[in-house]
């Protein structure tokens, strides 16, 4: 977890310097973070200052029904990135995958951190919480539900990392056999920041953390509790292939002419228009690429219930049932109905004609 012997006493600035991070690199990181969070350049010194002096806050990371993809994303270390070092500079007091301890020792460490930093520690959650039967997912015999409610009590704020913690994610997909719910479905009395994505982009989480470290407050959130700085625009509005959408040039299959020319992937089911994330601008793997650029339609992974959106390869505006079959059956039934109704009409008309009494001038007045 931490590299220093007395980690809790070092400030973030000291920690970074001890890693050999130059002031220049540090400031570059602060500038990048500021711009990503849509803060003005004048904020850079503030960020730098705050991070410098930030006492490594205690962070407790709870992993529930998850695939560990969020952790994988956040700890991607192709190179020693500053993001990773930021991680070194918080006191990650509890994390299943990354901690060295296990068993009772690990649980004891968690309880100690909670007690010591009561009211001040950051609670990070990934994975959903099963309500169907608490036994579906337990840690040290404690159900996810109990552990969450317990740990949330003394937290300063909660960050739900990944779509599972933010919205329920994969486990929540139909038919939701475990009764999986999001953190916000259980905890109602704490500030929660949702950082969805399957997984989220690494720099998004560090941006949120940096904001918290700098200002001690939550960043501006949208109606789904997601930081506006990263989730304020749709993929569609920032996608480099948007001109093709506007011109009506679409790839029809995965290796046709259009696909090769990099045309819009809407017809292949891209959920860009209804998905809010930073993928199109910030991208992945240190800004290398993102799914659409790689030729795969956006699956909408930062949106609630994206697994139940009717299929990754069907555009959101498309029907999910076989409409042409429905129409044909309806037409067949209707043809019979129309014949019946038509015959009724004819019958009535014939009957009226048959009972026709020839009108004479005597019929003109009562």
């Amino acid at each position, binding site marked *: 977890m931490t590299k220093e012997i007395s980690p809790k006493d070092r400030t973030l600035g000291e920690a970074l310097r001890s890693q050999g991070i130059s002031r220049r690199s540090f400031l570059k990181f602060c500038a990048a973070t500021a711009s990503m969070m849509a803060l003005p350049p004048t904020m850079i010194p503030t960020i730098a200052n705050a991070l410098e002096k930030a006492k490594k806050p205690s962070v407790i990371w709870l992993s529930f029904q998850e695939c560990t993809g969020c952790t994988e994303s956040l700890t991607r270390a192709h190179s020693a990135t500053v993001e990773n070092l930021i991680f070194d500079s918080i006191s990650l007091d509890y994390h299943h995958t990354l901690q060295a301890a296990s068993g009772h020792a690990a649980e004891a460490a968690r309880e100690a951190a909670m007690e010591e930093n009561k009211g001040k520690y950051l609670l990070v959650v990934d994975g959903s919480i099963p309500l169907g039967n608490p036994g579906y997912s337990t840690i040290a015999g404690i159900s996810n539900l109990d552990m969450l409610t317990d740990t949330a009590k003394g937290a300063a704020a909660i960050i739900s990392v990944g779509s599972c913690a933010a919205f329920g994610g994969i486990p929540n997909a139909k038919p939701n056999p475990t009764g999986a719910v999001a953190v916000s479905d259980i905890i109602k009395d704490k500030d929660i920041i949702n950082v969805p994505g399957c997984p989220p982009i690494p720099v998004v989480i560090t941006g949120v953390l940096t904001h918290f470290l700098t200002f001690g407050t939550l960043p501006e959130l949208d*109606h789904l509790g997601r930081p506006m700085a990263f989730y304020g625009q*749709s993929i569609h*509005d920032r996608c480099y292939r948007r001109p093709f*959408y*506007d*011109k*009506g040039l*679409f790839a029809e299959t995965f290796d046709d002419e259009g696909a090769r020319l990099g045309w819009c992937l*809407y*017809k292949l089911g891209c959920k860009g*228009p*209804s998905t809010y994330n930073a993928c199109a601008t910030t991208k992945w793997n240190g800004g290398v690429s993102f799914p659409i650029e790689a030729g795969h339609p956006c699956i909408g992974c930062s*949106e*609630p*219930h*994206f697994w*139940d*959106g*009717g299929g990754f390869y069907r*555009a*959101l*505006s*498309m*029907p*999910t*049932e076989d*409409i*042409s079959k*429905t*129409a044909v*059956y*309806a*037409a067949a*039934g*209707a*043809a019979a*109905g*129309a*014949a019946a*109704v*038509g*015959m009724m*009409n*004819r019958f009535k*008309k014939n009957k009226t004609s048959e009972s026709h009494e020839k009108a004479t001038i005597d019929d003109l007045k009562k």
Partner: protein
Amino acid sequence: MSEIEFLSWVRGPGFQIATIIFVAGIIIRLGEILLLGRKTNLAEAKGSEMRSGMRTIASRMLPPDMETFKRSTFTITAGYIFHIGLFVTIFLFAPHILLIRDIIGFGWPSLPTQIVDAIAVVSIIALLAILVHRMTDKVLRHLSGPQDYIVWFVTIAPLLTGYLAFHRLVGSPVTMLALHILSVELLMVLFPFTKLMHTFTLFLARWYNGAISGYRGVES
């Protein structure tokens, strides 16, 4: 119900129900009309029924003379604007063509989105003007009933919700998209029971009109 569940219902069972009512309703209405039949004309013909009938289907799109256009300028012009607008926004807009291709197996090229967008705006304005006209003109007030206003509403709703959804102007995009599709489903469900049937029956009516006239040697 969450947003995406609402959208999933609207895209799924909702669309199915609407399709059934739409298709079945139209076929039954047409059967109701056609199976009544019409007596053969026994008088000596001066012109061809079929030719004149087919011709009138097309020619009736235009007013018969300038005088008629002058007397009914607003009705004709606004009517044209929103009908053409509906045609363009429904059939020449990429996501819609995609939907149609999915249902009937083939599609066709689309118009650039910006053009469709502008036409949508013009159509909405025309429809608003038409509503005002219907509410203020004395002939139209005499002629109109609840059905006319309901049909007006289900005609403008898809245009409005579609425009709002596309531009992300109001509410969440998933909900707006769902509302847009729902508004179309409402239109489909009401279609066979209202004057919207004129979409299909006008071919019959114009044909009969032309046939009757043409039989007597009058170009209609």
